[in-house]
């Protein structure tokens, strides 16, 4: 059996894949009900999305109807010790002025007749519980697909300390998609990934693929704040920022991609966020990126520009190339200036950025058993145009980092890995490293031991200290499910603040991932 046989096997292969056509061409009827102007709240969106997805029985997969995805459970235990302020009467503290030192060496800040200092608070045990459902549904209409990624949160222990536990349920993503070879339309809660970053919004997008290797994507909707998936007037910001935005914002933009030939890909993005009522701009930015392959070298170009402040937030050129004999080198230069949304005043404070150069060298021996890496960077901050400090001191206006590490495989299933890093910078510095030894017992099953030691020393943070730690990490398949866990203990010793006893930590992380339904594109529903 040669050519004819091969063709027939291809036909069979395609028929295996038909139900979902591997998610890309799969379909569902999601019972979304979008409110006018896309103003969906999470509490309305999530149940609707779930109902829409779960209403489709997986048993219909053979007819091109079904649901697949995964449920992922995160449970952690994190022990930390918070900081509390204490004070003594200024009259009882020797010396004069705002900065003084207690008899035991504790630095205090004195004002209004009191000298204040930090000391260790009580142990805090946080147990954040997070349950994710990622569901993908199709109903047999070629190109129509529903997708949702929903998160449930429940804080246990002293969970209030862990960020974002206020929202018990949230749709990170939930949309309907209709995809054809030349265009793609989406509606719902959508992530937009461009050179400007990762933005989430409730709305729609339309992507057109032109034959000239050109893609144009128009998108818009109600903007969600980056990193929290909430409207701008959310209490999550209001609770910690009195001057929080009082209006939500519309987001609109376009993103183009052009690949004139296989070795060159480019993109350009324009995006703006406008307040829903006053039409004040929250942001207006453009970005461009390009990746060029020249023989074996890769060249990256990246630019982010803030039209409002007329600042270049990022200009970056990076080159990476193999050098032969297992060596690979990469280098990068970048210019960086912080970006702030226009609903804050921070941009008006004229923040300065830095110019930076980075380099990295990787090497692997012929057998692949031993590899080594070294990397570093140097940055120089811009002129702050500020007056000299009253006491004649200067703050650091540069920083550098050096790191080196390696990996050695004693056998295919036993690997030692370690890295040392030294960071000297403005604001804070760090020196330390990690080492791990991991044994693999088969696909998805491993057990490892980890150790770490580092020292932090800084100008502007609470103080300096040393940490040593160690623990175990492992994973094991449980049927179709997969379980990972790590348990670590960290011993902390504060070096410059006697009243800060320790910031010891115990950490336990567990992740359980369970597949839902089968994937028609994989062997027998996911037997990989």
């Amino acid at each position, binding site marked *: 059996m040669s050519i004819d046989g091969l063709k027939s096997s*291809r036909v069979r292969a395609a028929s295996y894949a038909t139900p979902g056509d591997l998610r890309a061409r799969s379909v569902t009827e999601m019972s979304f009900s979008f409110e006018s102007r896309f103003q969906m709240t999470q509490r309305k969106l999530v149940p609707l999305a779930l109902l829409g997805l779960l209403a489709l029985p997986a048993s219909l997969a053979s007819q091109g109807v079904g649901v697949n995805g995964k449920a992922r459970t995160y449970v952690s235990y994190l022990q930390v010790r918070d900081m509390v302020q204490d004070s003594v009467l200024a009259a009882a503290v020797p010396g004069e002025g705002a900065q003084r030192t207690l008899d035991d060496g504790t630095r205090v800040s004195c004002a209004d007749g009191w000298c204040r200092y930090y000391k260790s608070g009580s142990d805090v045990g946080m147990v954040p519980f997070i349950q994710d459902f990622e569901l993908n549904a199709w109903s047999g209409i070629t190109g129509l697909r529903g997708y949702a990624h929903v998160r449930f949160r429940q804080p246990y222990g002293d969970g209030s300390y862990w960020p974002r536990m206020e929202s018990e349920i949230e749709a990170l993503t939930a949309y309907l998609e209709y995809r054809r070879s030349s265009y793609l339309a989406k509606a719902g809660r959508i992530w937009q990934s461009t050179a400007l970053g990762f933005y989430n919004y409730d709305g729609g997008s339309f992507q057109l693929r032109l034959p000239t290797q050109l893609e144009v994507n128009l998108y818009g909707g109600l903007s969600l704040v980056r990193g929290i998936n909430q409207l701008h007037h959310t209490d999550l910001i209001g609770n910690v920022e009195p001057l929080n935005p009082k209006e939500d914002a519309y987001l609109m933009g376009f993103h183009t991609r052009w690949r004139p030939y296989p070795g060159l890909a480019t993109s350009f993005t324009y995006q703006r966020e406008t307040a829903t009522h006053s039409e004040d701009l929250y942001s207006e930015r453009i970005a461009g990126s390009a990746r060029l392959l020249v023989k074996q070298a890769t060249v990256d170009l990246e630019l982010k520009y803030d039209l409002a402040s007329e600042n270049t937030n990022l200009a970056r050129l990076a080159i990476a190339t193999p050098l032969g004999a297992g060596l690979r080198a990469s280098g990068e230069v970048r210019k960086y200036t912080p970006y702030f949304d226009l609903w804050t005043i921070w941009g*008006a404070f004229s923040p300065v950025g830095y110019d930076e150069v980075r380099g990295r060298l990787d090497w692997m021996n012929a057998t692949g058993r031993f590899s080594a890496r070294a990397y570093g960077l140097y940055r120089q901050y811009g002129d702050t145009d500020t007056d000299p400090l009253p006491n004649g001191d200067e703050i650091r206006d540069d920083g550098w980092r050096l790191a080196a590490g390696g990996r050695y495989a004693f056998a295919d299933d036993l690997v030692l890995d370690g890295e040392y890093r030294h960071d000297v910078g403005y604001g804070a510095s*760090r020196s330390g490293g990690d080492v791990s030894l991991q044994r693999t017992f088969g696909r998805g099953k491993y057990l490892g031991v980890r150790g770490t030691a580092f020292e932090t020393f800084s100008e502007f943070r609470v103080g300096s200290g040393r940490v040593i730690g160690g623990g175990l990490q492992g994973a094991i398949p449980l049927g179709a499910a997969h379980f990972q866990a790590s348990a670590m203990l960290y011993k902390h010793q504060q070096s410059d603040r006697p009243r800060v006893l320790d910031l010891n930590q115990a950490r336990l992380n567990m992740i359980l991932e369970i597949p839902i339904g089968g994937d028609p594109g994989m062997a027998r529903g996911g037997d990989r």
Partner: protein
Amino acid sequence: MRRALFLAGSAMVLGGFLTASALEAQSSFPHEKHSVFFADCGACHGGVGSEGFDGVYPEVATCAACHDGNTAPEIGWTPPAGPRASNLGFKHEPHGFDCATCHIPDGGEDLSLMRLPRPSTCLSCHAPQADGHLSAEGMCQTCHVPVVESGLRSSDVTGFPTPASHRSDGFGTTHGAMAITSAADCAVCHDRSSCFTCHAGATHLPEAILDIPLPQETGPRGVQLPEGRTPPFHEGDFKVNHAAAASAGLPECSSCHSESTCNSCHEGQNSPGFHPLNFLASHGPEAYGRVSDCSSCHNPEAFCRSCHIGLGLDAAGGIGGAYHDDQTLWILSHAPAARQDLESCVACHQQTDCLRCHSAQTGLGVNPHGPDFNGTGIEDRNKAMCTLCHVPGA
């Protein structure tokens, strides 16, 4: 005539060995010693060229007629029960050559050289332009069947020599284009499980993968690729510097990743594996240095500031705070530090902390703007922000 018969017979013998896929390339059977007893190859290998395995090898009795312990020594040979597992799709009948053409090098007469044909024999007609067997890109399917139909085990295929293209730098990226034009070639050694080693999370699976057969539930399997390999272009610090590649689509993220891959880090709340396990205790230098863009995953107010406040590191905003107690007269000397890393200040300080002094309305009127401040440009875009400090219209 005698010579022609001799050659034809010898070639038939060798043809049988080809079909049977004997273990050794060089036949261990001393054909040259037996040539005087058999008129042609078909005497022993008459089944070659027909369907099935019957007649491909001689009957034991045929050999035993001489090898009876008297005429000739006994032998313990028995014919194979069936064809050896192979991914060759070769059929003798359509080719129509005499046996020696392929089974004796250069078509010679020395029967001691009889052997299975080398791939170069096939290439001499089917891919004369190729430098060698493994360089004949796009031609695999000419002679080979998909691995899932071959009866080979994964370990068999893994032992095959690696094609030249697979050893080239950048193959991880370029293999997609090759697969699109000739997925059938890939299928000679790979079933779809090979693809899913990396393309497991694809939102939109490349079309070419659909042309590669699924593995059999039991039976033949293709090359099993090791997990944990670094995908193309993901080397180095790709984890924190992938924006340009992701935005431009080289490589195309959705070929291997679902959206939850992005969410798992960019959502920012729970990203196991991105930061080191002890990052909480050591994130200060990382945050000050902006080695990675914290705000691409973490909201400065809702994430950084709320945690700092929760753990007691909230900023008092006045001169009595205990945080900046290592800096003399910090309230008067913070300007360069604030300009250099305002993003870190924001992790603790509210805007109202700064407006105590910097507001032109309610504060001391200390001007925070730098010399290149574009006030007009900002006012044109967001007047409300300006009025947080300035009297409207002033």
